[in-house]
């Protein structure tokens, strides 16, 4: 059986069509699943992405040669038939289906199976081989149900607003932030946004995607102008000087799949962690894989060796593809100036166990 796709040092390659999918080095022709930086890199000769994904790609990559394609439309590239299908990850994100001589392979890109109300929902695509991400490919990752999540975030915000505190919610600026905005109850207060998020909002609004009203946080803004506001910002901004303008009494939270782990939540030093991701959780991955009907599964991007073994246990022909995608990296955009306990702390802990228990 001929491989429809192979792995090269530049990325996933289709010899029949002479193109790459989400390559990490410059190539003449790149098919891009979505606009996140680890998938859409600069320097490609030509780009092909979905119509919905294109504006953000142009916003992020500048002046690129990009062709667009609607979901589900088939296009012939060399000896390959190519089509893009909703991945439900962020607006415009796609799985890419490649058919060569009747053999069908699908590259998932990043995906989630729950409907976030913003992206076109994930659609399973029947195939022989499925190249799937597994960022959260362990059974400890199970996402909070959307209605519960909505209630959790709003009640946190409501309590802060009632106490006169500003709420700061750290979320990735493309996808996660907009999805969370859509869950917020505007009756509680105004929604403020960090520039990085508001720039993405502007691009999405410009292409006709409806988002709630937001106010960009600008320098020199009157601190007291928006009491009880919700501020959305990239995770890195929450620990820096930028966040201090919202007063010492602010409450901060992160929204990420990693918040499922108490240790990570504590390490990030926020008051709250909301368990929500634009990647599939354990059940989501298993459901999605099953729905493709594929027998060969290539796993990438995440807990690959564990997830591969699990799939093999389930009867799949499962292998690892070593790509350079980073997924929802736990440290995503986090600055850390705080260093670990100094040697003195070690000394104390060594002699007095009590001192550790704080």
């Amino acid at each position, binding site marked *: 059986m001929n491989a429809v796709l192979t792995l090269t040092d530049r990325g996933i390659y289709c010899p029949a069509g002479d193109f790459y999918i989400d390559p990490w080095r410059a190539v003449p022709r790149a098919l891009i699943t979505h606009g996140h930086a680890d998938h859409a890199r600069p320097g490609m000769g030509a780009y092909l992405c979905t119509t919905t994904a294109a504006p953000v790609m142009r916003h992020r990559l500048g002046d690129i040669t990009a062709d667009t394609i609607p979901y589900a439309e088939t296009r012939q590239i060399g000896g390959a038939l190519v089509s893009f299908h909703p991945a439900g990850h962020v607006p415009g994100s796609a799985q890419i289906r490649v058919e060569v001589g009747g053999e069908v392979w699908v590259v998932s890109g990043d995906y989630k199976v729950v409907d976030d109300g913003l992206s076109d929902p994930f659609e399973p695509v029947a195939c022989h081989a499925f190249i799937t991400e597994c960022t959260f490919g362990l059974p400890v990752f199970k996402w909070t149900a959307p209605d519960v999540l909505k209630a959790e975030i709003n009640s946190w915000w409501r309590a802060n607003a009632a106490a006169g505190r500003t709420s700061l919610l750290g979320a990735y600026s493309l996808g996660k932030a907009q999805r969370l905005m859509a869950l917020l109850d505007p009756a509680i207060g105004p929604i403020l946004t960090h520039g990085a998020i508001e720039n993405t909002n502007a691009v999405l609004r410009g292409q006709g995607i409806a988002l709630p009203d937001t106010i960009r946080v600008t320098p020199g803004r009157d601190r007291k102008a928006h009491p009880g506001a919700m501020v959305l910002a990239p995770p890195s901004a929450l620990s820096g000087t930028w966040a201090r303008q919202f007063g010492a009494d602010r409450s901060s939270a992160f929204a990420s799949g990693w918040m499922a782990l*108490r240790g990570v939540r504590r390490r990030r030093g926020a008051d709250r962690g909301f368990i929500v991701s634009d990647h599939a959780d354990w059940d989501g991955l298993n459901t999605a894989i099953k729905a493709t009907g594929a027998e060969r599964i290539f796993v990438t991007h995440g807990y690959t060796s564990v997830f591969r073994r699990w799939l093999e246990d389930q009867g799949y022909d499962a292998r690892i593809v070593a790509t350079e995608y980073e997924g929802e990296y736990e440290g995503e955009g986090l600055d850390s100036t705080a260093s670990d306990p100094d040697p003195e702390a070690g000394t*104390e802990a060594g002699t007095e166990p009590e001192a550790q228990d704080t």
Partner: protein
Amino acid sequence: MKRFAALYASVDQTTSTKAKVEALASYFREAPEDDRLWTIALFSGRRPRRLITASVLREWAAEKAGLPLWLFEECYPVVGDLAETIALILPPATTTSDHSLTHWIGHLKTLSTQDDARRKAGILAAWDGLPPTERFLFTKLLTGGFRVGVSQKLMTRALALATGIDEAELTHRLMGNWTPETTDWHRLIEVPDPTAALSRPYPFYLAYGLEETDQITPVGAWSAERKWDGIRGQLICRAGTHHLWSRGEEVMTDRFPELAVLKDFLPAGTVIDGEILAHDTNGPLPFATLQKRIGRKTVPKKLLVEAPVILMAYDLLEAGGTDIRQQPFSARRKQLESLCASLPPDLPLRLSPQVPFEDLEALARARVESRDLGAEGLMLKRLDSPYLAGRKKGDWWKWKVDPLTIDAVMIYAQAGSGRRANLFTDFTFAVRDGDSLVPFTKAYSGLTDAEFRDITAWVRKNTQQRFGPVRQVTPTLVFEIAFEGIQASPRHKSGVALRFPRMARWRQDKPAGEVNTLEDLRQMLAQFG
């Protein structure tokens, strides 16, 4: 359990100490008395007897979740906590229950009298009837080590707030060997205890590390003594009783029985700040000797002979029943000197000698000699300083000797636990020995979170082999390892053991071929061991 889970959630969902204390205080006002008592017990390290081994719990949880055991084992190091791993992988509860914390602990006690099949059924049924947070806490009861971000100190503060009883008084009442089965709320918390005042310590005065030597000018205004390498302690002799407190507000009286004799010689109303030190007639013994005594609540005779301790006296806080902390150090020191001079010489109490120096150069020389004398460096005290509370700058400084250092290559990495779960933070290092690498120490601190994240990403890409949670990595990354001491250790392949090893820096400039050798380590052992 719902009220207890709500308490846990409100403590867990804030980083503000004030908010934590308030949540605990309102729990101590509202919760049923027996639940309050169990909460105090759990947060002060008194947990129910362990009923089921961790490995059996893992099996049951994996089985209930329909997952192979190997997959459970892969999850555990990512989560970093057994109870949490179990709570996360179990399927959602299918029934509901509303029992108190005390009920569940009683339930565990009942199960302990039953056979394995009934125990298993009892645990599985409990898991199936508890929502996530309660399930996590219930499993914490099973796995022991109830660390949920509330220190005993924080809890005591909240208890003081809720009851109006003085915090130090409560600290004292919560001591000892009580369990919720041997006492009740009223007896433990509310009944005044006249003996509390007899044992009450003063807050310790702690020094910062010296930054600039010109902070020690004019030199005539300062006193220097050795910073001894033991456990800081406060000896309290009042009305024929004696108590020994650690800096962590722990009572260590019974751990060092040889100090009991002091109460027969010291005048009533004497409080001494000092260092508990392993020490024989020839002088201080290495810290490793004292280490054998740490963590032991009772001391076998043999250990008393092998690892005898003394109290090295630094300061006098109370004399003749009077608090003299506001007097200048020079005056307190004089009284301490005459007190020590009046005692028989063979008592396990010594005066920490002053180190004479006429200028900063002499002081610097004295500091360097510290390691040879079995000390960590110098303590510098302004002669007119009062004895303050807590860590304060200005009047007291510690000036430790520079650590020993060696460059080594990382060969194994393991994920941390707690707030370091899912990050590779625990490393094993090796030095060169001809063509081979010899592991000689582990270290897990000294780097920034950002460095740990970079190393974590690197470890994932450069794993050669996995042994459970441990990854063998390509020997590439070089670190400067700093440590406080070195001694011979036949248990270790390298033949040495280091004291307080940590990563001083990541040497991205140095290739693995240039790390130090086993011979270098041996020379350090010969020189400093």
